[in-house]
């Protein structure tokens, strides 16, 4: 066994690498810049975790997914790799300065894109040996990507400031257009590309047309009755995830159902996630907040109760099925007017022109009154902006130098330039998002092979399916015969349960 394989076995419990992992690690270890496109569930993170264990110096990972960061740190610590830390807005001030204090002792540092703007942190990193700079979810840097994050555009400068270490950009979904844009934005046109196909042979695609919500519910309970397999049901709304979970709980007493969303407290989130991984739960009704850190191999069925806003997130969510290579199915439920909900979601991701205008006036007045410091929380409340909307505006205002380091700069007569420019931008962004949604909706309505149409924009060849292809080609639910490996846990009385937990003999007191 090579050194890499020994580490893989010891820390991750796998005997061999998955497609792409070893190639990327080898390339990164000799100091090349790499762009890696690996499908969800292929273990992207191993591509930088192993170099972090081996290389001299520190590996920095930029990730916008805070919960994923936290999950990975926990999992690494659980396996015995302790020199790892995540610094993000969850970390309290006091703990943060403790971490800053011993920064150079870490081999792997996860950072949110906001955090890397922190001057003190940057200065300290500048004095350290950075062996690799990883940009996770690298498609966020591209305006053509499905989750553009303005913060990511600043990474280029950060990398330069940190003495230009080698860069590894990773993503699960990027069209050739987005791939080029990533390299463009980073000004590293000579990155070695490692692109792997996103389609998985064992996943079957289907769409179920329903006339209304009631039919959706009937379909779900009938299907799960017939196929009691580990299932994730995706919702766009927390409320509905809860409501349907409770409905299914009563409809399917033989299955264990729970819900999961970002609004739950942290211990309950950990519990549900671990129950699902440990096989104590069969069905999770969830929002997209669930699943990022999920390492469960036998999810057999992914149901989309609401249509996703774009193909890219759909592919990522479906990618959580059948990681063990066994037959798994994706079903998208569609009822008339189902496009309305994602449209509303898109609206909520952009500010209105009115909000931009009134914010401009607010800043102008503040500046003239010489009150230049801003409080982001207060602004978000006062102007009824959510975090995504505020991030959008903030980035634009910074670009036009109206804001700098959370201070209002002189505004003068920028209004005539700024407002129409932002208005145009909002309009364009809205159209782009709408186009993405339409792509998704078209996919639902088209008659051709679902697998082919889904993956065509991303790759030139499509793999041969191992089981069924899709409902246009060969699939009908009646024919499906998935491996059913649900274990039934017995409900025990508390004494037995406690004794089991503590590995004790149960005393029978019935004498």
């Amino acid at each position, binding site marked *: 066994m090579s050194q890499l394989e020994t580490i893989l076995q010891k820390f991750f419990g796998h005997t061999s690498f998955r497609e792409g992992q070893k190639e990327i690690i080898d390339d990164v270890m000799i100091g090349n810049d790499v762009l890696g496109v690996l499908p969800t569930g292929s273990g992207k993170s191993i591509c930088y975790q192993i170099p972090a264990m081996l290389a001299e110096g520190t590996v920095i990972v930029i990730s916008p997914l805070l919960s994923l960061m936290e999950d990975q740190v926990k999992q690494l610590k659980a396996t015995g790799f302790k020199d790892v830390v995540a610094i993000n807005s969850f970390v309290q001030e006091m703990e943060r300065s403790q971490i800053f204090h011993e920064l150079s002792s870490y081999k792997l540092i996860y950072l949110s894109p906001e955090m890397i703007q922190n001057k003190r942190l940057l200065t300290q990193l500048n004095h350290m040996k950075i062996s690799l700079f990883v940009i996770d979810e690298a498609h966020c840097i591209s305006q053509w990507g499905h989750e553009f994050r303005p913060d990511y555009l600043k990474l280029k400068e950060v990398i330069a400031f940190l003495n230009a270490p080698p860069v590894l950009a990773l993503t699960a979904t990027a069209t050739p257009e987005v791939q080029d844009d990533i390299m463009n934005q980073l000004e590293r046109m000579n990155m070695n590309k490692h692109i792997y196909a996103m389609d998985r042979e064992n996943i079957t695609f289907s769409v179920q047309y329903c006339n209304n919500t009631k039919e959706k519910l009937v379909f779900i309970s009938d299907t799960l009755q017939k196929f009691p397999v580990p299932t994730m049901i995706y919702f766009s709304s927390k409320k509905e995830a809860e409501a349907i979970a*409770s409905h299914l709980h009563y409809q399917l007493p033989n299955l264990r159902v729970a819900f999961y969303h970002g609004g739950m407290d942290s211990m309950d989130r950990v519990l549900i996630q671990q129950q699902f991984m440990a096989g104590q739960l069969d069905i999770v009704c969830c929002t997209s907040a669930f699943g990022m850190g999920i390492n469960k191999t036998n999810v057999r069925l992914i149901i989309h109760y609401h249509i996703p806003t774009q193909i890219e997130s759909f592919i990522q969510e479906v990618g959580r099925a059948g990681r063990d290579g066994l037959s798994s199915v994706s079903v998208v439920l569609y009822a008339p007017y189902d496009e309305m909900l994602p449209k509303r979601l898109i609206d909520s991701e952009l500010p209105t022109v009115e909000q931009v205008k009134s914010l401009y006036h607010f800043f102008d007045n503040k500046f003239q009154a010489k009150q230049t410091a801003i409080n982001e929380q207060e602004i978000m409340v006062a102007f009824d902006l959510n975090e995504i909307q505020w991030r959008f505006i903030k980035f634009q205002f910074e670009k036009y130098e109206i804001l700098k380091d959370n201070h209002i700069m002189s505004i003068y007569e920028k209004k005539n330039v700024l407002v129409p420019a932002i208005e145009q931008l909002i309009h364009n962004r809205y159209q782009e998002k709408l186009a993405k949604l339409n792509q998704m909706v078209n996919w639902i309505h088209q008659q051709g092979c679902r697998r082919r149409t889904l993956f065509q924009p991303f790759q030139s060849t499509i793999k041969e399916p191992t089981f069924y292809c899709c409902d246009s080609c060969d699939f009908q639910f009646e024919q499906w015969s998935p491996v059913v490996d649900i274990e039934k846990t017995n409900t025990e009385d*508390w004494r037995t349960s406690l004794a089991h937990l503590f590995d004790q003999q149960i005393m029978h007191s019935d004498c």
Partner: protein
Amino acid sequence: MIHLVNYVILYCIAKINHERTTASVYHLLRGKRSSQTIQDAKLYELSSYFGILKNLKRSDFEKIVEKLQESGWIVSNHKNYASLTEDGYIYLQSHQKTFPVEWLNGMQLASISELFWLRLQLTIQTYTNLVQGNNNFIPITDDHTVQYWFKQHYYHSRTDVRESVDHLYKELLTLLESLPTDYATLFVHRLSGYQKIGLSLYQLAQSSHLSVYDVSLLLTCVIHRFVTKVKVKSNDFPYLSMLIPPSEQHVADVVTQSAQKTKQWLEKGFSIDQIAQIRKLKRSTIEDHVIEIAYIDPSFSVESFLHHQAYTEILHGIKQSKTTKLKDIKSLLHNQYSYFEIRLVFASVTDNNRSMIP
């Protein structure tokens, strides 16, 4: 269905009876760290309810209050001052024995028992995994201070893992056997460990046909009872005793930061006026701090601020006046004593020694 949370809120409103807004009940249950809330808790004999429902959402609280109104148990004016109706009192009376609210001791235990509970869950999870030879598990709590505590504890205890598991089991079993089956079941189902992930609050609520807040409250009742028992009989629970944080921790958790600074100066022997001068604060602010400390710190002594005779006279006055209005008490005592002195005596009297509210 009877809801424990309804009972608790109704009880608090009965005690406060029109003298404060219902929002004060919300702050009390959440355990808000403010002098006002802490003093109210003592004043209205609601100390045991302080901080017992830290996960209560404002919107849910308001819904419950609305429901109590619709059920005809409370009436409130437009400024959110509420009081109980006759039906409300009857409801309280008839459900007195349904819930183990007498186990609660919020002001003294809320933060200690929360920490104890987290430590206990992490300890159980870790030991039951280690005893089966499993080192790969994700800690049940994200709280870094609790994780740090466990590392220290594990390092220093140096006992055999098997032995620790057996001890822990025996001590827990003793405690659980003193509980009604329903409560013991809730508690055990919440625990996580080797090949057993605990149930979420929502799942517990579902399996026991209760509301999420009721489950939360019942668990709190159970934990408070456990902590009380373990503290009183530490010889019978040597293992669990190690999981209870020291009382200084409790004071530090509840008292406001500013009051804590005052406490440090007091301990160095400075007077109230001196501290006010040093800290560039008003005397009345420092007095507020002293009152706050008096309410929370069980080791606080009023003697350095008040002669014994003054203390007994004021106490007598309080008992005679049958009111909680400081102004009335002051005039009853012929304005001989300051508000500060009267409040100090209030703070030092335990709930059980007073019973002025119907």
